[in-house]
C-alpha cells in the first residue's frame, strides 16, 4: 500500500517548515501541500483510493473551511483503516483537544511547531509505523 502525506495549513511558513522537518526526519520527502481545507477536499474527492494510505497533518484554524469542517466533509468516504489524521494547531484549547479525541479518523493532537523529533517519533506510532518499515 503506497502512502501519501498531506499537509493542510493556510500558513505557508508552516508548510515550508514542516516540509523541512519531514525531510530531515525522513518522514516523507515529498508531501502534498494544501493551503486550505477546500483544496485538500477537492484532491481527495477526485483521487481517494482504498488502496492508498493517507497521513494528514491538518491545521484546525483556517479561514473558509477549517479543520473540523474538513473532517466532517471527508468522514462520508474516508475510512479509518487508511486515513490517519494528525490535528495540528498553535492554539492551546482544551476543547479542541477533547474534540480531536472523539473523531475516529484523528490519531493524535499535535501542538505546533511539529519538529523533526516529533516526526521521527510519529514513525513509531502503532497505527502508521508499518508504512515506515522496509
Amino acid at each position: 500500500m503506497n502512502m501519501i502525506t498531506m499537509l493542510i495549513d493556510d500558513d505557508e511558513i508552516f508548510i515550508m517548515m514542516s516540509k523541512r522537518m519531514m525531510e530531515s526526519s525522513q518522514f516523507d520527502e515529498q508531501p502534498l501541500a494544501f493551503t486550505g481545507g477546500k483544496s485538500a477536499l477537492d484532491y481527495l474527492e477526485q483521487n481517494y483510493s482504498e488502496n492508498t494510505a493517507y497521513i494528514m497533518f491538518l491545521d484546525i484554524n483556517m479561514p473558509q473551511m477549517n479543520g473540523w469542517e474538513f473532517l466532517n466533509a471527508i468522514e462520508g468516504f474516508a475510512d479509518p483503516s487508511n486515513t490517519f489524521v494528525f490535528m495540528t494547531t498553535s492554539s492551546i484549547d482544551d476543547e479542541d483537544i477533547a474534540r480531536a479525541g472523539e473523531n475516529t479518523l484523528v490519531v493524535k493532537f499535535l501542538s505546533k511547531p511539529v519538529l523533526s523529533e516529533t516526526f521521527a517519533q510519529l514513525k513509531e506510532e502503532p497505527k502508521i509505523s508499518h508504512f515506515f518499515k522496509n
Partner: protein
Amino acid sequence: MALKGNVPIIALTGYSDLNFATRSISSGLSDYLIKEDLTPTILYKSVVYNIERYRYIKTIKESERRYSDLFQLSPIPMWVYDIETLRFLDVNQSAIRHYGYSKEEFLSMTIMEIRPEEEIAKLEEAIRNSKEKENHYFEGEFRHKNKSGREMIVDIRSNPINYGDRKAEVVLAHDITERVLHERTIEKQNEKLKDIAWIQSHVVRAPLARMMGLIKLLTDHAVPEGSEEEYLQHILNSAYELDEIIRELAGKTRQIKDKSEIE
C-alpha cells in the same frame, strides 16, 4: 357622643330608647340591656361577654395596624390599584418618597402615569393576563418614571387583593436600576475578557510557534544552503506580528481597566 377609651361600655335603656341604643352601638357602645328585662344572669352574661369581645376586637385592631404598618413603613415602594379603573387606591410612604408624588397626587392618578409611553403596551398585556387568571401572582421587570421624568428599571411583584368592594392588586416595586446597570457593565467586561482569552489561546501562539520552528531549523542546520537570510526574515516578521498582537491585547486590557475605574 364619641365613645373611646379602653373599657367596654354597656348601656341600660328602656323600651322607649331602643332606637337610640341601637344607633349608639355604631358609635362605640359595646352592648345595651333593656331595664325591664334585666336579671342578674343577663347582666352577668353581658358583662363577661363584652369584656371578652372587647379583648378580641382589640387583637384584631392590633393585627390590622400591624399589617398597615407593614404596608406603610415598608422600605420598598408599594401601592394598591384598582384593576378596572387602574387608579391608585393606596400608596405607601416609600412610594411617595421614591416617585416624588404626594399621596393626594397619587390617588388622583392611574398606574399608566408612572410609565414612559413605550411601556404602556407591555403594561396593558400584563393587566390582561392578570385579569384572566384568578389569584395570579405576577413578577417582572418594567420601566417606570418618577415625577421629574427620571426613568428607572423596577422589579414588580403583584398579587390580587380585595380592597373594600374593589378588585385590586397590591404591588411591590423594587428599583433595580443601579443593579441592572452594574450587571450590564460587568457583562460587557466579560465579553471583552472572553475576547482576550480567545486571542490568548488562538492567536498569540501562532507567530510564536512559527518562530520556534524556524529557529529550530536554523540551529539544526536543516535549511537549504544560502537560505539562512530568508529564514531570519521570516523570524523577524513573526516577531513583529507577535508584537502587534500583544499591543492589541494591551489595548483591550486597558479598556477594561479604564471602564472599571469610571464605575
